[in-house]
């Protein structure tokens, strides 16, 4: 299986005033195409930082992050933006839709930024995708007229509309009730299987991990272990990650 993401001994320090806070302390990770990978860990474990590095919205302080075969440290700001646009889709915890645009326009936005398709092609793709996520009825609505689950579906459609190789989801169900969260995960899983899109999502919800092909556990900015979903649930990662027993 081809590797889509390779993280080698990546560290990330944030300057917090005069203090340097290490968010990642040397993480190694390889993600193969088609995976449905969950990154788990408690607050402050470095989940989001790792996702930021993989999502090319940030670069490592040291170490290497390769996305689709490209070393992100060697790319310019513009090239990183292009890489995000063409290779990665994002799903955010709080959906992050553009409030002033309609559902259709929100989904169409990345295609417009890509400038690859004409209007008819865009419309066709956006409408197909919205049908797929079950929002054909709401195509003209504004985000504020939708429920939380519906909004996250719009976000998923937006993330997938460019047919990216990789979709990153940061706690995609954290702001949703459990039933809706379940539906969203089902949808993501389904898309993962039909479109062969790689999904990496962070979560500390055991039910979410249950869907994952494997679970990478982080603690204190360090890689802990990589488990199958069943192992992860058994290990109770939804609770506090074991401080001891990690070697």
């Amino acid at each position: 299986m081809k590797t889509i993401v390779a993280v080698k001994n990546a560290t990330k320090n944030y300057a917090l005033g005069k203090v340097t806070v290490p968010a990642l302390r040397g993480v190694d990770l390889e993600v193969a195409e088609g995976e449905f990978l969950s990154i788990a860990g408690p607050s402050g474990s470095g989940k989001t930082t790792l996702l930021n590095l993989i999502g090319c919205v940030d670069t490592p302080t040291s170490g290497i992050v390769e996305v689709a075969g490209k070393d992100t440290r060697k790319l310019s700001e513009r090239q990183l933006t292009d890489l995000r646009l063409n290779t990665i889709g994002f799903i955010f915890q709080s959906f992050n839709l553009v409030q002033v645009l309609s559902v259709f326009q929100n989904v169409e936005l990345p295609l417009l930024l890509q400038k690859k398709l004409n209007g008819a092609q865009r419309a066709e793709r956006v409408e197909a995708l919205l049908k797929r996520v079950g929002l054909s009825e709401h195509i003209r609505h504004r985000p504020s007229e939708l429920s939380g689950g519906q909004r996250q579906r719009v976000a998923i459609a937006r993330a997938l509309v460019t047919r990216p190789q990789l979709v990153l989801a940061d706690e995609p169900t954290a702001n949703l009730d459990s039933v809706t969260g379940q539906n969203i995960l089902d949808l993501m899983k389904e898309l993962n299987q039909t479109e062969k899109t790689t999904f990496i999502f962070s979560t500390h919800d055991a039910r979410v991990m249950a869907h994952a092909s494997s679970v990478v556990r982080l603690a204190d900015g360090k890689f802990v272990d990589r488990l199958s979903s069943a192992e992860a649930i058994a290990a109770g990662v939804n609770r506090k990650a074991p401080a001891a027993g990690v070697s």
Partner: protein
Amino acid sequence: MEGRFATFGIIAKIAFRNLFASRLKTAIVGGIILGGALLVVVVGSFVDSVVAGMRRSIVGSVAGDIQVYSSQSKDPLEVMGGFSLEAPDLASLDDFARVKQVLETVPNVKSVVPMGINGAIVPSGNTIDVALAHLRDLVRRKLSGKTTPDDVAAYEAEKGHVHQILSVLQGDIKNARQLQDEKALSPEDAAAVNKAISPAFWADFDKNPLDSLEFLENRIAPQAIDADMLFLRYVGTDPAAFARAFDRMKVVDGTTIPEGKRGFLFSKFVYEDQVKLKTARRLDKIRTARNERGEKIATDTELKRFVRENSNQVREIMLQLDAPKTALFRDKLQKKLGSSEADVAKLLSSFFQTDDLNFDDRYDFFYKELAPSLELYRIRIGDTLTIKAFTRSGYVQSVNVPVYGTFDFTGLEKSPQAGALNLMDMVSFRDLYGFLTAERAKEIGELKKAMNAREISRDNAEAELFGTKELAQPEPAPAAPLTLPLATGPAKRGHDNGHQKKGAAAAVPPAPVPAPGRNIVAEATPGLNPPQGEGVGAKLAREELVKRVYDPAQLESGAVLNAAVILKDESKIPQTIAAINAAGKQAGLPLKAITWQEASGFIGQMVVAFQAVLLVLVLIIFLVALVIISNALVMATLQRVQEIGTLRAVGAQRRFILAMLVLEGLVVAAVFGGAGVVLGALIVKVVGKIGIPAPNDVSYFFFSGPRLHLVLGTGNLVAALFIVFVVSGLSSLYPAWLAMRVNPRTAMQAEEG
């Protein structure tokens, strides 16, 4: 291409929708922009209209589009007068005909008007002098035995009048005693008044009128100076050419100065403001303020002051009243006021104690019942003015000119600025200024011949002058002493011209005369006060100078100080100035051409000041607007950090963000700036149609009429839009920079888990 268009579409959509999404920001920013654009259009149009009004006033009342004067002058030309009363030191343009000829070779020149501006002290009627002169005239007739019954009545009335003046004087002395140290008053003066008012003096008067008159003239008249000296600024010109060039000029009273005649036209404003009986002038002012500006005596401090002054200062009227008039006034005022008071001064004082209720009634009563018995104007149309001016060399020169009438400029009737200059024929002006006119040169030539004048050497000058020839002795000067102070010289009224002539013709030997035609500026005061005698000069001097006719060609051929140039195309002033200067150089004439604005001096500079103030105002307003708008946009940007971060995360480049924010700014600028401009234009149109009424007399000049009609200039519309776009562009720079720096990571940072 299609993609770009769609991208622009989405940017525009986001930008436009955001205007509605953050309404507070849009309201603040839009409100400021709308207000700013509106302000620029309205205030800009106002200032433009005022500037245009001032231009019309200045150009149309004296300056013309361009003024030309000698480049050898020490001071700059100021036709509207500067801060000081002193006339600027200007070199003359010796041959106006030549100047005119050269100026008319410049294609854009429509007409050229010769000018010279100077100021003069004019003694205006002193009541006691006039009364005594009149009395002397009547005495003379009585003595000659050729009296009519009318003369007898007039004689008695005039005696009563003099007695009335004496009573006023005695009152003055009494008042002065209360105010001042007794020693400050001359006891001789007080004694003289007491003597003159005594019944014994008047009992003796009929027996020995000439001696009594002399006593009054020498001892009393100097104490009874009631008239102000008038300081008149006048422009000497060719009256006909002036009227043609400045077509807003119109004659109000009397007639224009006939061609070839010496003469003086009062500016109507000066005539009303300085020559009219002060009480009447104040009544007029109160009436205007009440009727045209809706002011009230009760609330307006200036009007209160006018009422107070009218009530306190009845002396000027009292001095005019002889016995029959005093009786008439007493009778009328007692009836009007329902009073039994016998003192006319007190009756007048209480009559002028007006308020808002009785003002109109008293105003009408004054003009219908009292004014016909009064001299409302100290100088009447038809009177002859003795104008005394300092020549360039510092001598006092004096010229008699008849007053033909008054004039003003349409729309500028009430403007003190436009009405500051009186008008005089150029020939009289040259006399007063010390130019040697052709007429005068000829006269001097004849004088020299008649008097056997010859060149004398300095060494034996004394012997030549005093050893051989007796100087003609003057007649004892009657009413008008020739020496200073100037104030004692009475105005020469039409009715006492004959009498006055003797005064004016008193003896001063002719001053040394420069060779005619060589030096245009006389060193002394040639021909002033020619001697008595039987020679040609004396004969000329006895002729009424005022009746002398000059050849109209003289207007053109002599010297002038400056010339007003009216243009065919007034928008080409700078080019025409260059052309005039070049033409002058080519012709060897020291011509200097300046714009109406420069020529108008201080007032013209106000145009620049207005524009500068506007510019500063606009700058300040927009600096403040810039800060406020920038702040509002920064706040709005900070609220949108997540949205911007999301856009960046999903693949929007920085320039997309920049374009989005700039477009937002532009949409606000276009929508609100446009609305402001349209609204401003509408206001200007409406206000322009109605016109802004001039709030006071001074504004007539700036408004060039009683109302300022705003004119909408495209320049202001363009400027408003330009400024709005620049300001919105500048004020979105910082927020745009902030937005571009938003890290896409911020999209992820919502409630970090």
